[in-house]
């Protein structure tokens, strides 16, 4: 494997910020009501943020593919969707383990939880569709459209707690209207650090997955060319 300085530096920065964020998260003061459960939020919230970022990326890269018709945008869109699915699973696992001692159950069909689970269906379908279409151009085009439509998930999921009130609390960080953070400032700083770490993690994973996808695509094209030339030689 060739050494890539940017990837190595990005990886080192990601690892460092993740370790600092995990250290801060695990040593944050206990909450008066939640006790140590509040420390779980420093993984749950940044994971949800990362999945938003990843799904937003899938839509953006898909759009760039439709405009520019360059395959690298399709590879990045696919990589981003895969990362989004992974971190949606992390978000759901964290949420369920927070819900059990807080709500008394692992799962309720609350609007936020339901839309989060639906994102797994949408992006699971996105990744499945890609395996079902052989023609690379058509695959990229169809998945770009699915990815673009799927991006609607982000605002719907973010606003679900406002539009359909359920058991899930409303946003701790309100971005619309007057920006507000409804928790102790110390938790805000830890969350900020964890969010920065997970943002770097997204870019690192996207870069590595993008490199992998590019190499696999190049190899597949070489294999196809080899098959075509073998067939041509056999026909004589």
């Amino acid at each position, binding site marked *: 494997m060739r050494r890539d300085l940017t990837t190595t530096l990005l990886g080192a920065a990601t690892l460092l910020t993740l370790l600092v964020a995990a250290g801060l998260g695990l040593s944050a003061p206990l909450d008066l009501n939640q*006790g*140590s459960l509040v420390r779980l939020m420093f993984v749950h919230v940044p994971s949800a943020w990362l999945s938003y970022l990843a799904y937003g990326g899938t839509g953006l890269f898909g759009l760039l593919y439709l405009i520019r018709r360059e395959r690298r945008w399709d590879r990045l869109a696919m990589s981003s969707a895969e990362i989004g699915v992974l971190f949606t699973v992390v978000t759901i696992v964290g949420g369920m383990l927070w819900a059990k001692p807080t709500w008394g159950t692992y799962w309720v069909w609350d609007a936020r939880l339901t839309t989060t689970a639906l994102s797994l269906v949408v992006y699971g379908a996105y990744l499945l569709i890609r395996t079902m279409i052989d023609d690379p151009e058509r695959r990229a085009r169809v998945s770009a459209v699915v990815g673009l439509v799927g991006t609607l998930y982000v605002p719907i999921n973010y606003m679900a707690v406002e539009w359909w009130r359920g058991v899930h609390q409303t946003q701790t960080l309100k971005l619309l209207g007057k920006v507000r953070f409804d928790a102790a400032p110390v938790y805000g700083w830890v969350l900020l650090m964890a969010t920065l770490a997970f943002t770097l993690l997204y870019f690192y*994973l996207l870069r590595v997955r993008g490199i*992998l996808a590019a190499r696999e695509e190049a190899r597949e094209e070489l294999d196809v060319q080899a098959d075509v030339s073998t067939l041509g030689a056999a026909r004589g």
Partner: protein
Amino acid sequence: MDKYAWYVIVVYVVTFVLLGAYLAWMWLRLRAGTRAGSDRP
């Protein structure tokens, strides 16, 4: 630490294990690709 500590530990462990598994999977595929490339005539 209190009675909820295990929930917290499990979430941190699951998160980092999943992340590690994904990185390992990518690394293995990158390595397999490099080998296949070097085997090509």
